[in-house]
């Protein structure tokens, strides 16, 4: 009996050498977290006023009360007031887009799904554009900061509303049907796109510029003030989605099979839709729509760590963080002193990578 037990154990350690061992999970996530930290510290230092890594560490350490050090006050202000909130917002938004993309691909059981499929981004865009275009026509004397919040609030409402509509239209006998959700999402995307186009047509030149800036995305609007509001709203979906790995794995077999494994699929779908909408809605509201991260990051992650969602979900969050931080670094340094929109960078770099991945898959 004793021998039998050891032989089984030996086998199981061989069988699970890679994909399932907790050590592997810790290793992958630890490496990614380390990369994120390094990339973050590096990105904070780069810009019109360069700050060396040593100074970055001494300023941050001092502000946190960890160490006593000397640094130039000007550098400290640039670091803490301008760069730090921007990098943190970028990381959070990247994490949300990455993990929401991975979860959406999971529940749609389709590697081409992304958060935009539920109409989150297009609904947000529609409401944001409507608020830009109709704002002047109603001619209220807005305080500029208030108008920024209004734009974000409108975008968030648009994101929630379109997801809500898609989710409820997809219900058959009280249960949301994934295939109907997909089709409704596509239809609503087209409708929102058409109305957005109509509004753009009616917009003035100045409005067009702000629409264009908004629709291409940027994390440049980050301040501690809006970060305070956004931080919990972005962190909650990341944490909430990253523990859905087991359920999403079972979902890969199909809804009936997942039910047979004890997963309540209706609750799972609702959770994923609500958390993704919250996260992506807030990020679109603050930064505009940033394309490709939600599609690309989960793909890249799967190529590296395999398909197991227990690892894919947190790794997509960390990967999204890293890539968005780097993309934002390029956006603000490539054509300094001005900035490129973030969405252009992600699409420019993302498209070739994506096509390369498709070709890899084809030859496999």
């Amino acid at each position, binding site marked *: *009996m004793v021998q*039998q*037990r050891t032989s*089984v*154990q030996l*086998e*199981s*350690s061989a*069988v*699970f*050498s*890679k*994909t*399932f061992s*907790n050590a592997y999970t810790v290793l992958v996530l630890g490496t990614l977290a380390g990369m994120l930290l390094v990339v973050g510290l590096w990105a904070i230092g780069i810009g019109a006023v360069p700050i060396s890594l040593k100074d970055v560490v001494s300023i941050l350490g001092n502000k946190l009360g960890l160490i006593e050090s000397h640094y130039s006050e000007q550098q400290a202000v640039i670091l803490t007031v301008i760069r730090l909130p921007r990098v943190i917002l970028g990381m959070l938004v990247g994490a949300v887009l990455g993990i929401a993309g991975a979860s959406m691909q999971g529940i749609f*059981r*389709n*590697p081409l799904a992304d958060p935009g499929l539920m109409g989150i981004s297009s609904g947000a865009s529609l409401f944001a554009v409507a608020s830009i275009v109709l704002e002047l026509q109603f001619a209220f004397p807005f305080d500029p900061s208030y108008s920024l919040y209004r734009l974000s609030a409108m975008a968030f409402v648009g994101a929630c509303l379109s997801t809500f509509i898609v989710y409820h239209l997809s219900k058959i006998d009280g249960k949301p049907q994934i295939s109907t959700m997909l089709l409704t999402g596509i239809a609503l995307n087209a409708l929102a796109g058409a109305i957005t186009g109509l509004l753009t047509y009616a917009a003035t030149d100045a409005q067009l510029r702000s629409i264009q800036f908004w629709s291409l995305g940027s994390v440049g609007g980050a301040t501690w003030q809006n970060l305070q509001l956004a931080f919990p709203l972005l962190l909650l979906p990341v944490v909430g989605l990253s*523990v859905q*790995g*087991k359920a999403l*794995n*079972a979902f*890969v*077999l*199909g809804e*009936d*099979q997942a*039910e*047979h*494994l*004890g*997963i*309540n699929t209706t609750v799972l779908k609702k959770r994923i839709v609500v958390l993704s909408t919250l996260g992506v809605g807030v990020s679109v509201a603050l930064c505009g729509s940033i394309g490709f991260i939600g599609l690309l990051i989960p793909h890249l992650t*799967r190529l590296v760590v*395999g*398909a*197991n969602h*227990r690892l894919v979900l947190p790794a997509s969050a960390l990967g999204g963080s890293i890539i968005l931080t780097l993309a934002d670094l390029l956006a603000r340094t490539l054509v300094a002193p001005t900035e490129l929109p973030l969405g252009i960078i992600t699409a420019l770099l993302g498209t070739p990578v994506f096509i390369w991945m498709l070709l890899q898959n084809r030859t496999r």
Partner: protein
Amino acid sequence: MIQAQNIAYTIRGKNLLQPISLEASCGEFIAILGANGAGKSTLLKLLSQELKPTQGKIYFNNRLLSTWSSTTLAQHRAVLAQHHTVAFNFTVADLVMMGRYPHFKHSPRLQDYDIVAYCLEKTGIAHLSQRSFLTLSGGEQQRVMLAKVMAQLLDHTAILQEHKPLSHPKFLLLDEPTTGLDIFHQQNLLSFVRQQTQRGLGVIAILHDLNWALQYADKVLLLQQGESLGFGKTLDMLTPNLIKKAFQIDVQLVSQPSLGFPIIVPYQSNFFNQSIKQWQPQHFH
């Protein structure tokens, strides 16, 4: 024990299943047989709670099936589907581990790894454990899914003490499990499942091959157009008469002294006469 009392299923005014009663005890192998569209899959879906009966009651281990929580139910019964779609590139080991999902919350425990390794070995696919499911042949895929449902039903003592009966009454529902398998793997799968019934596993399987049913099933439920033609001991149910009713074919049961059981041979009456007429040279005039 699974008890179905007068369960029926109607959708959009169409009766897919007339009231049917069925009782399956632990350790029994029950085969559901019938022509295409006879309601076999509907019945299995009712028993697995994929569908809710429009009439009648189902008891699972003496408790109303609908009052079981999905997790507890999953710990006591597994379902092997006919078709498998796996959306992503999961490895075989990952998939078989899914069978353990009802038993742990977030991360698998050591014993879960042991059970998965055991099931991989028992189904003969341990060497495939790191392969991607999507690259496997149909027969290999079916064995992976069999390993998955076995991992779902076995517990740690069951793999350490192979001859002891299962600690809890457990059931396995199979929907045409031999589809797409060659005859060797068909037999392999059925005899493996049959072995498990000796440890107290209850099995309800939709089968197409009457001879497999004859060899492996204790009892047979014959369905025809949503109605039960009877439920009873295999040899009592698989008579030429009832088979003719269920499938509209003529069969003979041929006994071979060297085998312990008869063989069901289908034949077409007047086939030879007809076929000879067809081959008359007049066709070529």
